[in-house]
């Protein structure tokens, strides 16, 4: 009997288990939503779009050499601008490949955008106007995505349609278009976007693209294409990709793209929706305060902040600018402050109000030689200053708003960045082991204070948190301590992806580079160049020259992740970074005079490594050519 029960149980099992369906391969996955569910209403499209915006390669606070959305990764606090000369990292010297790969995520995003574009016409719940507007938004995102691809890879595969999955893999492969065709696609996508996007957004939609955002993207992208056409021959490449036009643009097309930039920029400038924030300050100090406020919270300036990326969720979707970039003294609990050290190279570029229209290198010696970077020289006559910051008197307000200068106050603390002293007998103690000396009953310390927590520079025993350039970072930083800052990703300041000042400077550059003169463009471009200067407290206009525009661009947009691409598109990277050693300004207390005064040493940064940009890196390598069959970029 027992055996019968046992046997029948065994026989029963297959019978019971035989419940499987023969449509098992057709079941809908439980972790994905079908487009028939989500893309049926405006609200559904809105949710879908939110994800597309998240994927879009905005080069924001969370963008760095480790990738997009990298705010929670340990990137050593190496800002994008610290890889192209505006700053050095307190520890690392390397010139990283800089921009991360945008190939696979780019095509993943493109696929999602194409799905949306394919579905929008079929959504019955939408009016025609709404369909056009939403499609315009998708075109904006596709333009931005292809801009990100084109500036890295040159000509790429243009996939306009949503490709259905098929086992016939070969039919899915799309060859590279030429670089020109790719830029033209970006241009036409911007036009499609601008056609139907609304001129303004309200309420919960203020972070969505507008007509003016699309124009601003076109302005930026056209300037990039024009520059590649005009200056590509400065760094000639060779090989199959060049021969087929997959990289490089005919120089004869430069003015065509410059004019597209001029038109797109002019549309914004004449559109009336955007203008500079507080364009006419009474004093340089007021200008500096205005600019600090603008970057600490762009929401004060909707007239200038054309398109912002927000970070609503500290610890999850926040960013880490305050964590890495504060001087050591105001770390507020962050473990790795002091990483961002603006260079003397950048500080030199800021104009003086006394000598408008030229860089104003910091003069430290009686003979005015600003090209000696060999360090302290006993036979040299150094200028004496009462404070560590008097030497920057009359320098552009933007220097004061971008950089913490030695001896100035930040978040209630006097930020000490002192490299050493000269003993009364003339012995220099500079960038050396920490020491103290008593002169006339007063104790002096090499780095400006006894305890390392009370200074922010030059002490090599705490090199990771000490500036080695004599400057600390200020732009964007929260003026109040960030809650929970011992962890990454706690900062929530918004990022301005597009702001009006860039549009003005794009316009000025395109006009001066092309010599365009219709519609009084030369005058308007000179005004555009001087508008951002006036906002920074300048009162003397300077002429429209390419040098003036580039200097203005570098100081106005410093640390906004533009300089890397400016060096790339203008093919200046290999010229600027040819065995380049970046420079520091060392404030030194001179104890030979009573009362002691400050002298300054222009020198190579300590622990320097010469950095060279190889020319093949003007384009990135295309990944996966073994399987995708694409033609590789030169020299990879």
């Amino acid at each position, binding site marked *: 009997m027992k055996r019968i029960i046992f046997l029948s149980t065994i026989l029963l099992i297959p019978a019971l288990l035989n419940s499987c369906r023969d449509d098992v391969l057709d079941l809908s996955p439980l972790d994905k939503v079908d487009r028939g569910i989500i893309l049926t209403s405006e609200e559904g499209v809105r949710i879908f779009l939110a994800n597309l915006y998240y994927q879009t390669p905005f080069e924001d606070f969370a963008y760095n050499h480790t990738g997009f959305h990298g705010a929670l990764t340990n990137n050593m606090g190496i800002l994008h601008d610290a890889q192209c000369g505006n700053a050095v990292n307190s520890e690392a010297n390397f010139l990283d490949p800089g921009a991360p790969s945008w190939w696979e995520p780019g095509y993943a995003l493109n696929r999602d955008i194409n799905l949306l574009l394919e579905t929008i016409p079929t959504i019955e719940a939408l009016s025609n106007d709404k369909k056009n507007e939403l499609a315009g938004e998708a075109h904006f995102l596709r333009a931005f995505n292809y801009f990100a691809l084109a500036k890295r890879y040159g000509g790429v595969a243009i996939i306009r349609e949503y490709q259905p999955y098929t086992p016939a893999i070969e039919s899915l492969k799309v060859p590279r278009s030429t670089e020109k065709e790719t830029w033209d696609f970006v241009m036409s996508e911007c036009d499609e976007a601008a056609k139907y996007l609304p001129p303004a957004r309200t309420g919960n939609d203020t972070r969505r693209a507008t007509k003016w955002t699309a124009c601003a993207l076109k302005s930026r992208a056209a300037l990039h294409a024009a520059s590649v056409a005009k200056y590509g021959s400065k760094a000639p490449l060779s090989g199959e990709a060049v021969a087929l036009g997959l990289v490089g643009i005919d120089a004869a097309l430069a003015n065509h793209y410059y004019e597209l930039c001029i038109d797109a920029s002019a549309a914004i400038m004449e559109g009336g929706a955007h203008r500079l924030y507080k364009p006419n300050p009474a004093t340089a100090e007021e200008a500096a305060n205005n600019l600090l406020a603008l970057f600490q919270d762009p929401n004060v300036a909707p007239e200038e902040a054309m398109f912002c990326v927000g970070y609503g969720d500290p610890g999850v979707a926040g960013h880490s600018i305050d964590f890495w970039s504060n001087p050591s003294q105001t770390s507020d609990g962050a473990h790795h402050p002091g990483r961002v050290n603006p260079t003397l190279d950048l500080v030199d570029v800021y104009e003086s109000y006394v000598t408008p229209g030229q860089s104003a290198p910091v003069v430290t010696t009686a003979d005015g030689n600003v090209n*000696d970077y060999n360090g302290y020289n006993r036979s040299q006559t150094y200028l004496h200053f009462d404070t560590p910051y008097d030497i920057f008197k009359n320098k552009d307000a933007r220097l004061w708003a971008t950089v913490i200068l030695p001896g100035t106050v930040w978040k209630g603390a006097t930020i000490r960045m002192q490299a050493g002293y000269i003993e009364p007998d003339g012995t220099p103690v500079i960038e050396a082991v920490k020491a103290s000396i008593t002169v006339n009953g007063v104790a002096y310390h090499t780095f400006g204070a006894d305890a390392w927590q009370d200074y922010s520079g030059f002490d090599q025993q705490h090199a990771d948190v000490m500036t080695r350039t004599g400057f600390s970072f200020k732009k964007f930083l929260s003026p109040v301590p960030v809650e929970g800052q011992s962890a990454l990703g706690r900062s929530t300041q918004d990022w301005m992806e597009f702001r009006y000042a860039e549009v003005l400077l794009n316009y000025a550059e395109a006009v001066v580079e092309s010599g365009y003169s219709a519609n009084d463009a030369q005058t308007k471009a000179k005004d555009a160049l001087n508008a951002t200067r006036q906002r920074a407290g300048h009162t003397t206009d300077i002429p429209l020259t390419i040098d003036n525009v580039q200097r203005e661009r570098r100081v106005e947009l410093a640390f906004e992740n533009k300089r890397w691409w400016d060096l790339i598109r203008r093919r200046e990277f290999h010229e600027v970074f*040819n065995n380049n050693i970046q420079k520091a300004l060392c404030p030194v207390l001179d104890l030979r005079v009573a009362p002691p005064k400050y002298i300054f040493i222009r020198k*190579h940064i300590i622990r320097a490594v010469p950095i*060279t940009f190889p020319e093949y890196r003007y384009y990135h390598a295309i990944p996966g050519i073994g399987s995708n069959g694409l033609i590789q970029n030169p020299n990879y």
Partner: protein
Amino acid sequence: MNAKTIKYYLPPILAAALLVHSCRLDNYDAPDASLSGSIIDAETGELLQSDVINGTTIKIIEHGYDPVAPQYLRVKNDGTYANTMLFANVYTVQPDLRNFQEIDKQDIAIGKNTRLDFRVTPYIRVKDVQIVNDGSQIVATFRLQPTTSDVVDKIGLYAHSEPGVGHPIHQVAAEDTLNRQVAEQDTFSLVIDAAKHTALLKAGRAYYFRVGVLSGFPGAKPNYAPAQQISIAP
């Protein structure tokens, strides 16, 4: 992990290790072929100086595969090159980036110790180079012999502690942009004043100095004279 679980997991792990250890990496023989040789100035018979970084490259394309990714061999500073880890096969070989006039591609059967020298015409010969130490000043004088009608873009004197010195690798450089035609009898002079670079060129130490010249031919790489070691006056 206690002893019991180890006993439980160990046999399958060992079995797996034994079973998995059956595969070969691939079916190919190890790369035992090599290609080496020199870039030689056809007129003077001298090795043609180059750069390791951004200097002459030789493009080789292996036959029998489609698509096939070309390989690039880098030529050393002294004008010699070698790749000892190639697969024996027929290759199409042609210098790619160059500081000499283009030469035709050739199909070569590469096997063990295959040698291939290229006899070429450099864009510019650097002649009669003299580098002397005059106090703190290192003075280079030389003449140029262009072999094309292109302008001479720039000339340079480069200094570095390593013999691989050149335009891509230097601590100090004295460059002069000419952007004009030059005649063979013209004498050029470049000066590096070590006293102005005390942080980089330390007194009493020896550094390598090398004269370079860049042709205006589009895409040309610099031509060089051999590097010379010179001590900085103490």
